[in-house]
């Protein structure tokens, strides 16, 4: 197994607090920072880069939106080291009004899974009653859950715990990209 951050079984994304323009996330394995995500500012189309370090010397993943408006946008995921397309994530805009929902696509834009909020009831509760209830997402292929993404309760700093079992059928780089997009796009609404 290589030493890439997406190969970990569990990791946490935490938004950097003092960032005026754009957004940045640290990726933690316990207390150790293993990667750094930077969401570029002043870009009409979302452009997110994952680096092996905060100095941004080695780019690992590139996530870029096809559309300007995030409502039902599709985000392509590219492995920066091999320059190969890993897959894509497509946000289901209308469905996400009530319950956040994303489609996971392979390198040929064929759907292979989905990421959804834990339950419609909790999603509605968060939207209409209290935004303080942390979100939970499951990445599923068919009826099987491949990974879980759970927001930590913290009213000041957005933090997302990701758990990926060893037998996950989806490319782990795609799971990582899903976590970054949920933190960047859905987390922005908090």
């Amino acid at each position: 197994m290589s030493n890439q951050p997406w190969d970990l079984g569990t990791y946490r994304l935490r938004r950097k607090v003092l960032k005026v323009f754009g957004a940045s996330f640290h990726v933690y394995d316990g207390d150790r920072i293993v990667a750094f995500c930077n969401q570029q500012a002043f870009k009409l189309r979302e452009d997110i880069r994952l680096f092996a370090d905060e100095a941004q010397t080695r780019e690992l993943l590139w996530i870029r939106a096809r559309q300007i408006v995030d409502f039902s946008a599709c985000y392509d995921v590219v492995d920066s080291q091999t320059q190969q397309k890993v897959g894509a994530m497509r946000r289901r805009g209308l469905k996400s009004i009530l319950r956040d929902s994303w489609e996971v696509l392979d390198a040929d834009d064929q759907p292979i899974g989905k990421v959804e909020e834990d339950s419609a009831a909790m999603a509605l509760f968060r939207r209409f009653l209290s935004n303080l209830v942390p979100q939970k997402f499951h990445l599923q292929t068919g009826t099987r859950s491949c990974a879980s993404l759970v927001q930590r309760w913290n009213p000041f700093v957005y933090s997302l715990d990701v758990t990926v079992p060893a037998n996950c059928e989806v490319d782990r780089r795609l799971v990582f990209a899903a976590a970054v997009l949920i933190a960047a796009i859905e987390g922005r609404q908090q």
Partner: protein
Amino acid sequence: MREPTTCPHCKHSFEASRDQLGGLVKCPHCQRVVDVPGLNDPLWWLLRVGILIAAIGAAVWFGRVEPWHGALAGVLVLGGAWLVGRAF
């Protein structure tokens, strides 16, 4: 008619689908990433029409006082939208 996309790595030409416009796709020949030019974002076009209507509305509203107020308001709205568009 859409122009074919040429892979910068192997020079293979292919036609990207409408959904792939503005995206990063796999070249069917060399499998490497190709940046497809263009944009398929109906909501963005709608937003631009909205900005134009806002500019006209601002020009008419502020133009009630002085015509040059209206012209300035319209120019400011369009100028602001242009600045944002420069980022793209």
